[in-house]
């Protein structure tokens, strides 16, 4: 519904907005990795003509300046100490961006360097410098129950298990064991983080690139000590999110400097600054898998360490989701998982599409392949024998498996021609990746449907349109209930002044959870329309029909505008209905979830050049197991996008740090996939089993495919004779690991 506006360049993004009297902000970032701030002298910067205000940690003395939706560990700007190179130390607001930049060079910061821990190994060492001390302050939106105490630099730990793991491993006929490394990667939403903040007497207003406007509102209200109803967050179109704009990012800084300047201030991240703002967790992982010679998978044990950087951001939830993804969707006799979230002196890590699952699925699937190789059983066959069936247990106490995984795997295997071997098996490898991802976040959404006097419907819902097609799907769901064309339904961006609460836009929850709230609101509106028409005609509502924007009874019809005129006794007026979704048992804790298990199933075929180590993805198939495809074309497009991001994650993307300093902070140095990287064949296979909790049995998609594609590529490269234990599979790494086995 919004494609034409976007095609014409008329869709407004935050960066396109101009607020009267707006200043331009610029952020001074620490050059030190870990240091005490001895002094900050801003006098010269303040004196520069055109500078309206300069803010440092000292300006935050009248508020509780720490935020974090999971752990309140992060100051708005550094207070006394910096914990990573790139941490904001001061903010300038000036009449022009150039003046703001110039003023930054006039700020004199004296640092006293501290010992640092820029890798997982150094952060976990016994004598490691501690990034945070004192009691853990819980944030409001982690949904993880009571957080455990911090141990050294371990800010969160998640563990579960069942069965007698040690005994199963000691008696197993086949044990596969390995250590693995997953790189930190950059989400690269093309629109970088952008915020305009205005601090007025009675209201804080933010125009923000926020996936979760209501959670941002809550954090800003808590920080600045005012009621949430006095914080207004407006989110127009979002130029991609992929998790990078989830939770709170630049908003606290923007509000703080606007408060000091007394005028609206805009902050815009460069790509470099965006990489310093959030990234995907790098990870080390140890895993072992036990099986018998007959190909029965017996047990899995996993320990993983995620590098969350200097502040927790979404690290705890990423850790829990990684833990849930660690066993893989197989029927185990025993499982033991320990997932640890570790502070380091690096920029904070947060959400990125299919977090946790992308980290783990390739590792588990490599081990399943190795079991197949040792037991001489076909890899597909081994999976089909051991995969969990519908209703199986992924994690004790969690929602049982709500999908047909063997059916999904059969679909991709058939599509790639698994039973027909590749023509040149030495250079060509094939792989299958199977996994599930805890999805849906906390299922709390509300929506309002307004039937206007002209017969058009307006939907107010807090889901952020960021390219996933949420507005189109919401319009479709409402149009269907009310017998309208999709173009007669309008869905606009969130403005928390008017739009009702929605927890967040992420975890593939828009269609499933917010969509259900919209469907319920539209159903209520439909009931009201029918009741009114029933009174007008004096016939029971169940004998009436709705179509073409009118209520019909036998040969008579009453258009919505006429209906409203009859009801209100004049032209004008409107009907309002609402819908809500909340957890079934009123719990909503992540621990009792997830809302659904998002399926990630893919098959890939790669060609490996033994002379150069270059891997070419030739064909790739993904399953979109969506329960019900409300808009099949948009479902396929979600999978395609996830596939190409997966290709980048698997083959070449990696954020590099040199002793804590970001080393490849431009798109010249950090390469993302282009049209030249496209595989010859890329297909999404839609599966509709109506087994989701959303409207008409729908469930979310668009994330699982990323994890599955990474796993399918990694296993395919291994199938071509390359030892794989570290991503990305760059030509050099692949070439070295062919030679080793050579």
């Amino acid at each position, binding site marked *: 519904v*919004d494609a034409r506006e976007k095609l014409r*360049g008329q869709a407004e993004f935050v960066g396109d907005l101009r607020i009267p009297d707006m200043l331009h902000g610029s952020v001074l970032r620490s050059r030190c990795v870990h240091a005490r701030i001895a002094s900050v002298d801003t006098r010269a910067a303040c004196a520069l003509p055109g500078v309206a205000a300069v803010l440092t940690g000292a300006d935050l003395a009248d508020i509780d300046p720490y935020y974090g939706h999971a752990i309140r560990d992060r100051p708005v700007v550094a207070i006394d100490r910096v914990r990573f190179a790139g941490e904001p130390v001061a903010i300038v607001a000036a009449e022009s961006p150039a003046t703001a930049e110039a003023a930054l060079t006039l700020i004199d910061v004296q640092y006293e360097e501290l010992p640092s821990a820029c890798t997982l190994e150094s952060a976990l060492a016994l004598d490691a410098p501690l990034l945070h001390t004192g009691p853990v302050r819980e944030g409001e939106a982690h949904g993880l129950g009571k957080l455990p105490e911090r141990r050294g630099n371990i800010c969160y730990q998640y563990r579960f298990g069942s069965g007698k793991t040690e005994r199963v491993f000691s008696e197993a006929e086949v044990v596969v064991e390995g250590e693995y490394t997953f790189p930190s990667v950059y989400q690269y*939403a093309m629109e970088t983080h952008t915020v305009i903040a205005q601090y007025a007497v009675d209201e804080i207003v933010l125009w923000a690139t926020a996936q979760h406007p209501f959670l941002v509102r809550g954090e800003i209200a808590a920080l600045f000590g005012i009621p949430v109803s006095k914080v207004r967050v407006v989110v127009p179109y979002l130029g991609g999110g992929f998790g990078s704009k989830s939770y709170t990012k630049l908003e606290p800084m923007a509000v703080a400097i606007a408060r000091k300047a007394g005028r609206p201030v805009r902050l815009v991240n460069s*790509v470099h600054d965006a990489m310093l703002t959030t990234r995907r967790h790098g990870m080390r992982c140890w895993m072992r898998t036990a099986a018998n010679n007959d190909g029965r998978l017996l047990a899995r044990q996993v320990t993983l360490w995620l590098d969350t950087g200097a502040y927790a951001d979404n690290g705890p939830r990423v850790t829990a989701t990684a833990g849930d993804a660690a066993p893989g969707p197989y029927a185990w006799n025993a499982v033991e998982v320990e997932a640890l979230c570790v502070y380091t002196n690096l920029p904070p890590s947060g959400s990125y599409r299919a977090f946790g699952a992308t980290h783990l699925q390739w590792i588990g699937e490599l081990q399943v392949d190795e079991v197949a190789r040792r037991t001489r059983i076909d890899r597909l066959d081994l999976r089909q024998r051991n995969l969990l069936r519908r209703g199986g247990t992924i994690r004790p106490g969690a929602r049982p498996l709500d999908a047909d995984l063997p059916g999904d795997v059969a679909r991709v295997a058939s599509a790639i021609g698994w039973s027909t071997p590749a023509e040149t098996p030495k250079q060509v490898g094939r792989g299958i990746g199977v996994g599930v991802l805890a999805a849906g976040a906390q299922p709390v959404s509300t929506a309002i449907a307004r039937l206007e006097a002209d017969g058009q419907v307006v939907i107010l819902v807090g889901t952020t349109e960021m390219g996933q097609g949420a507005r189109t799907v919401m319009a479709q769901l409402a149009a269907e209930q009310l017998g309208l064309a999709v173009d007669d339904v309008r869905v606009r961006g969130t403005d928390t002044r008017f739009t009702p609460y929605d927890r967040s836009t992420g975890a593939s929850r828009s269609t499933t959870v917010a969509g259900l709230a919209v469907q319920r609101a539209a159903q209520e509106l439909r009931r009201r329309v029918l009741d009114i028409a029933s009174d007008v005609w004096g016939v029971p509502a169940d004998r009436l029909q709705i179509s073409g924007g009118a209520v019909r009874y036998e040969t008579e019809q009453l258009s919505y505008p006429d209906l409203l005129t009859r009801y209100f006794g004049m032209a004008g007026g409107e009907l309002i209905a609402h819908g809500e979704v909340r957890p079934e048992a009123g719990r909503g804790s992540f621990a009792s979830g997830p809302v659904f298990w998002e399926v990630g199933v893919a098959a890939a075929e790669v060609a490996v050049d033994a002379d150069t180590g270059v891997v070419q993805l030739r064909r790739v198939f993904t399953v979109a197991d969506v329960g019900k495809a409300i808009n099949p074309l948009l479902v396929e*497009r979600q999978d*395609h996008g996830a596939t*190409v991001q997966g290709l980048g994650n698997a083959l070449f993307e990696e954020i590099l740090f040199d002793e804590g300093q970001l080393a490849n902070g431009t798109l010249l140095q950090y390469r993302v996939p282009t049209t030249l990287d496209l595989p010859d064949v890329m297909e999404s296979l839609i599966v509709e089993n109506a087994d989701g909790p959303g409207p008409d049995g729908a469930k979310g998609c668009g994330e699982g495919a990323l994890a599955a594609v990474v796993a399918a590529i990694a296993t395919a490269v291994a199938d071509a004779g390359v030892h794989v234990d570290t991503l990305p599979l760059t030509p050099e790494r692949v070439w070295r690991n062919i030679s080793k086995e050579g």
Partner: protein
Amino acid sequence: VSLAEVGFRLNGRPTRASVRHEELLLDFLRDRGLTGAKRSCDAEVCGVCTVLVDGAPVSACCYLACELDGRDVLTIEGLVTLPAFAVLEEAFVRRAAVQCGFCTPGMLLTIHSLLQDAALTTEVSIREGLSGNLCRCTGYRAIVEAVVDIVAAVDRHG
């Protein structure tokens, strides 16, 4: 502040402006409300700031406004007024080739330029032609399919 006087055509309209010597074309356009060209990488990599100068795609983030003198600039705001736009729009809508929309204006300008040169004959040439415009949402498949449709439509109608 030293200013340069430049005269050029902006979306077909003769335009005179005083620009700072260091002023980038992208800032020049966006400061005048032509916000269809977006900013992202600032390094001539991503293509979201693509505009056409004398028919050729340039990254406005790396192009000086003072070099416009005597040239012809086309932005998305101008492209939508041309008859050729309808074919692009229909193909992109039909193929669901628009997701977040941030890369879309630049992508359309590149395609429009490539079509003028009749350089798009095979899918390989389409992929090569679009390799300077990044998209993070679609995985490019939909965009390539849309351009295949556009090429076919242009061939049919001359």
